[in-house]
């Protein structure tokens, strides 16, 4: 983990996890890419689901949505697993998705050019 990711202070609690809360939802947006740390810490103490997440990430990074689909886990549950994996140093993420992505003309122009090349 870089330790430099901005935290926006928004925290959401999840009843399913006994009242624990996770980083803000946009930190684990459906399109946030998750990467396995290499070398990561030992896997002792991880739940079977958390090990499955790391197994899926071994060959390539995946978005939160792809992990959820492949593990058949609702995203709300997956986000909790990912938050725990991240705080233990097993995974890293991209920068959080922000609402201002849409206001980035350069990004939009790149999307347009990319679509035109398809």
């Amino acid at each position, binding site marked *: 983990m870089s330790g430099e990711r901005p935290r926006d202070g928004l925290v959401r609690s999840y009843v399913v996890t006994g009242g624990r809360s996770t980083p803000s939802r946009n930190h684990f*947006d*459906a*399109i946030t*890419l998750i990467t396995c740390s290499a070398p990561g810490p030992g896997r002792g103490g991880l739940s079977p689901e958390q090990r499955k997440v790391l197994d899926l990430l071994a060959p390539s*990074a995946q978005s939160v*949505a792809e992990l959820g689909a492949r593990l058949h886990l609702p995203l709300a549950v997956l986000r909790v697993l990912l938050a725990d994996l991240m705080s233990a140093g097993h995974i890293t993420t991209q920068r959080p998705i922000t609402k201002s992505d849409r206001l980035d*003309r*350069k990004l*939009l122009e790149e*999307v347009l050019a990319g679509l035109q090349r398809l």
Partner: protein
Amino acid sequence: MLDSSASDHRTAPALRGDERTVKILIAGHFGAGKTTFVHSLSQIAPLSTEEVMTTASVGTDHTSLPEKTSTTVAMDFGRLSLTDDLVLYLFGAPGQPRFFPVLRDLAFGALGALVLVDTRRLEDTYPILELIEDLDLPYAIAINRFDQAPEHTVERLREVMDLEPETPLVICDARELRSSTDALITLTRHVLTLTPENAA
């Protein structure tokens, strides 16, 4: 709805994890062609992800007692690499108003929405348009051409859907890659026109 056949030979590049990701919502009423559209464009065999929504079930037919129920909302999605460094995700957005909270999360940071319409079910499109407008997402309309659909003029379609003059409306065939791509190009151009030059 399309079947996701096991013989799907799509080859998306493996992701490194440092790519930039963007998303576009593919909205529309049930049967408008959302899944077909995502299938046409995705470079991975399309997947379905689930979100659980907890709602108070007061007022439903099933019980008169107020209690919490969980509803699972499935969202089809696909992925395509636009460049080595830029990955586009397309999400089939659930169109029922009761799924609005899920849609709002999905819409966060999205570039815009393409609203697919089957002209045989125009009245089913009105609540979708209201939903998308509530999300404050820029959108374009894509009339998905169905063989038995009645022919309407574009002017008439714009009128009945009460579209703003600047909202693009295109005719597309969600089964075809080229046609579906063109619809996304139209949407992206529209979003660009709404984006101020100096906001970087």
